């Protein structure tokens, strides 16, 4: 398929690399034991924008974002080659402590995972406490981040209740709050809505919208509608490779690779 005049014009009008880049993957490959999960991914993550990563199951989306905060290597037998830059500096350099990378690049998981033994309040503060930091004004911080995730009004009277008592959607927002309490620069979300109902999903999407002014956000999602709704940039992964990366509207209206078009029109995946 040849590129249409329209898409070339679209591309020319908005060059891809014009905006400041927060993170960049360069020739990134990842393995689980002998199985290669990612091959040779190079793409930027634009600062204070939402980048969606889409693709069928097993295409390496989750592996990709787990490489962005060095969570991939937590799994036994997992390894990485290539590089990831954060503000132009490699996060895989030998002198870089993964613990510090993870404080700057936060992560929200597919299944809400609040700490079951901790109260809502302690869950919010968990990241700081686990790093041995006592915030100067805990109450203000708890209120602020729970406010950011629009959970404050729902839980302000039950801050001492266990986090596990909340509904699934509330738990996920609590996990996002827990991540934001560390003031990360980048927030990685691994299918944050896949275990939530449509109402909770809408709330999380709204939240992603609100957070983009302050954070660089990467969202892995199965839902093309969701990617189209929330993202500024979209990357399409297939079989561990990056097929296409572009402005979201370009991907969803004039994709240049036939595989992208097949996927977003529902011909496979």
């Amino acid at each position, binding site marked *: 398929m040849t590129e249409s005049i329209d898409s070339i014009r679209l591309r020319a009008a908005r060059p891809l690399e014009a905006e400041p880049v927060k993170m960049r993957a360069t020739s990134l490959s990842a393995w689980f034991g002998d199985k290669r999960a990612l091959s040779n991914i190079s793409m930027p993550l634009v600062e204070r924008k939402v980048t969606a990563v889409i693709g069928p199951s097993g295409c390496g989306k989750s592996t990709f974002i787990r490489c962005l905060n060095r*969570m991939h290597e937590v799994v036994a037998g997992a390894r990485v080659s290539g590089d990831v830059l954060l503000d132009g500096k490699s996060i895989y350099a030998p002198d870089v402590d993964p*613990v510090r990378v*993870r404080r700057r690049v936060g992560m929200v998981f597919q299944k809400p995972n609040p700490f*079951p*033994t901790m109260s809502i309040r302690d869950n919010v503060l968990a*990241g700081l406490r*686990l790093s041995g930091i006592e915030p100067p004004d805990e109450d203000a911080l708890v209120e602020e981040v729970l406010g950011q995730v629009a959970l404050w009004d729902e839980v302000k009277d039950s801050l001492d209740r266990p986090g596990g008592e909340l509904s699934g959607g509330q738990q996920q927002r609590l996990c996002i709050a827990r*991540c934001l309490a560390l003031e990360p620069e980048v927030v990685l979300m691994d299918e944050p809505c896949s275990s939530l109902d449509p109402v909770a999903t809408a709330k999380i999407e709204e939240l992603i919208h609100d957070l983009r002014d302050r954070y660089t956000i990467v969202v892995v999602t199965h839902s093309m509608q969701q990617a189209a709704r929330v993202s500024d940039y979209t990357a399409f992964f297939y079989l561990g490779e990056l097929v296409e990366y572009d402005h979201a509207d370009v991907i969803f209206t004039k994709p240049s690779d036939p595989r992208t078009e097949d996927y977003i029109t529902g011909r496979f995946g």
Partner: protein
Amino acid sequence: MTPGIESAYAKRKIAARAATVASSAAVVLALAPLVAIFLHVAVRGVRALSVSFFTEPVGARGAGMANAVFGTIQLVLLASAMGIPLGIAGGLYLSECRHTRLARAVRFCADVLAGVPSILVGVAVYAVVVVRMKQFSAFAGAAALAIVMLPLVVRTTDVLARAVPDSLREAALALGATRWRTAIFVVLRTAAPGIRSGCMLAVARVCGETAPLLFTAYNNRFFNDSLFDPTSTLQVQIFTYTMTPNEDWHAQAWAAALVLVAIVVVLDVLARRLVERKEVA
């Protein structure tokens, strides 16, 4: 409707009922010895209990077992102080570093240690501690009990810490926690209620251990407040008295058995209270 379905359903209902009855019977059968022992000990023990049992040391007629009660509590507390922290730390290592070669070796050793007859533990401590110190002692007895406890605590901690879902470990790591902080503040905390029960079982188990004490703490007719003197315990005292033909001493042994059971129950209740209060705070 399929013709045979009614009779198949009736058959299944009967099978379900039969299974319920059978498993209830198994529970009763399993609990019967426990209840029988407990009642028997209570009945025989209460008769011989008196105030002097708790105030007077071991001796002739009318004397008590105060020193043995004290000795048992002292030894078990000391053994717990040695065995539980070490066991929990070891179990946590096995769980969190489960793929290392050292972890595999340690797990194997813990299993072997759990299978070693407790009298051998006593002999080993005799050789290593008692012979070298030229003295039976409370310290040696506690060390022997701690060794008996160790594999139990290690194994429970290992199993329960491994049952903590990886999603919680990942949550903590992704928040920038180091591995050891994750292990202590997330894994250990999540597994704490189960580990507590496991430790209580280990404590209860050593409360009844007699064999390892015969060569280590030995026995003592008098009170002693030194950790480095022979020390009397209820277990060894029960053994000693039961071996005599003296009716009076037999009665005393029953009373000692009752007190031993009571100590285990009290320890259990205390531990529960302690953990509950911590969880509320």
